[in-house]
């Protein structure tokens, strides 16, 4: 029953247009494996993420979707005892190359986290934080306004930019975090289950926002919500826990195709709700 409903949802999403030209790849991994200490989290994942599209990563808990996402901006290297093998490339360049500064990577590849995490500062200071640490010499007032407009939050907060970011509702906080990420003018935005802590209305607003942002940015979104992947993404990757205990890529295809005619029986089992 559930599977059928999901199928219908996908059928009713015709706004996903198929790009004709060969897609330009912006991010890619080659046989990427990852370990937390002895525990394997990813097992040889090779994937190419197209530019200016929304790529969703779905899969059961513990399949390494978040770990995979965090490899793109080198957030995982902060975890003691973690370890990787393989390559992560951003515009053809290995980001784990010793000469690459993780700080510059993170400026170009922004991130929105699972739980909204605004700084305990004013809305204004939240937005300008990135610009300040990166030494950007922009008109800060203008930066705040454009970033908040892009994140569809401006009209709700424009009268009190001095209030604390923590005084906002959960959904507003998450849009503030998106605005904050946009303010440093990244090319890619990684989103790690951005709606899992939000109510359905706030979730809808974030999803609308993602659809607007895909015109300018490349978005990679991890979600445990298949309907969400179907609603917002152009491409979907399905991860599962492999025999090695680490996450592996089962299938990566256009969202529409993956949800209607999956080529792997494991994908079909997952999206029809028989597993996970």
């Amino acid at each position, binding site marked *: 029953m559930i599977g059928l409903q999901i199928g219908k949802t996908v059928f009713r999403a015709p706004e996903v247009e198929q790009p004709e030209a060969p897609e330009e790849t912006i991010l890619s991994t080659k046989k990427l494996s990852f370990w937390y200490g002895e525990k394997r989290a990813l097992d040889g994942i090779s994937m190419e993420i197209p530019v200016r599209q929304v790529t969703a990563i779905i899969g059961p808990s513990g399949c390494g979707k978040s770990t995979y996402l965090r490899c793109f*901006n080198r*957030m995982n290297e*902060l975890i*003691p005892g973690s370890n990787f093998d393989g390559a992560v490339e951003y515009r053809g360049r290995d980001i784990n190359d010793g000469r690459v500064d993780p*700080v*510059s990577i*993170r*400026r170009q590849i*922004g*991130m929105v*986290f699972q*739980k909204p*995490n*605004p*700084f*305990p*500062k*004013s809305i204004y200071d939240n937005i300008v*934080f*990135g610009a*300040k*640490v*990166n030494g950007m010499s922009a008109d800060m007032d203008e930066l705040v306004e454009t970033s908040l407009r892009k994140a569809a939050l401006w009209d709700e907060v424009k009268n009190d930019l001095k209030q*604390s970011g*923590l*005084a906002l509702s959960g959904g507003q906080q998450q849009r503030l*975090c998106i605005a*904050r*990420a946009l303010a*440093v003018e990244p090319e890619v935005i990684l989103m790690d289950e951005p709606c899992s802590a939000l109510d359905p209305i706030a979730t809808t607003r974030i999803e609308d926002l993602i659809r607007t942002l895909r015109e300018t940015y490349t978005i990679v979104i991890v979600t445990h919500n298949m309907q969400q992947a179907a609603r917002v993404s152009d491409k979907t990757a399905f991860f599962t826990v492999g025999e090695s205990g680490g996450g592996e890529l089962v299938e990566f295809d256009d969202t529409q195709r993956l949800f209607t005619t999956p080529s792997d029986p494991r994908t079909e089992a997952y999206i029809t709700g028989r597993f996970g």
Partner: protein
Amino acid sequence: MITLGETGTRFHTIYRRIVGRGFATATLIATLLGVVMLAVLMFDVFRDGAHEVDGEFLTSYPSRFPEKSGLRSALLGTAWMLGLTAAMAFPIGVGAAIYMEEYAPNNWLTRVIQINIANLAGVPSVVYGLLGLGVFVRAMELGRSVLAGSMTMSLLILPLIIVASREAIRAVPDSLREASLALGASRWQMVSRTVLPSAMPGILTGTILALSRAIGETAPLITIGALTYIAFDPQGPMDLFTVLPIQIFNWVSLPQKEFHSLAAGGIVVLLVVLLLSNSVAILIRNRFERRRY
């Protein structure tokens, strides 16, 4: 069987209620005991000493005539020592805490250092006095100066500041660190712009408590040879000095009754200095807390 069970349950309910009330009363008594003892102490000291505290008492040097005696030099010495101690112990203590929480690799050496610092907080103060005497007074030839005293006092309170600052830094959620780094902040920017502002109220609370302890400490300063009779103002960090608790101790140890009354007056001044410096520090801390919303 059923009746028995019911009786048992009822008895149990009443029993639990009595135990609950008894515990609440016991904690109340424990609280009141502290407050009442403090009130009695304050009352006693104020009755004995409040009449001694006047402008002359605060501005006169100690003297062998009780009526001419005052604690000007001790008050200034305490101010000097407190200022220098804070200036040295705060940056070093917070720096050590930042290193241990944000930079240190998680290996056995770090853990050994951490455990040792926690243990240092429990070392008797007279031991620090002996260390100060050996290292600062003699080896570094600082003499019995207010600088040597402040350095000794800094060593004494450093573990307290480090432990409190580490707790405060650890309480800053990792999500804020990640947010900061994900926006392209360097490690130092993350620490200075995100972690420290959030941890500052906790760090300041620890520092206030540590400095309060420094105000009252006597043993390490006697050990390094802080004088008991100073009839001039300390002008700089290399001058000889005395502090309020030493002056009080000196007066108490004299046989004349009049000096005991002076000692009570000294205690009143000491308590007022303590409360004043604490309130100033708490005001500063509250400003920080408001700033972070």
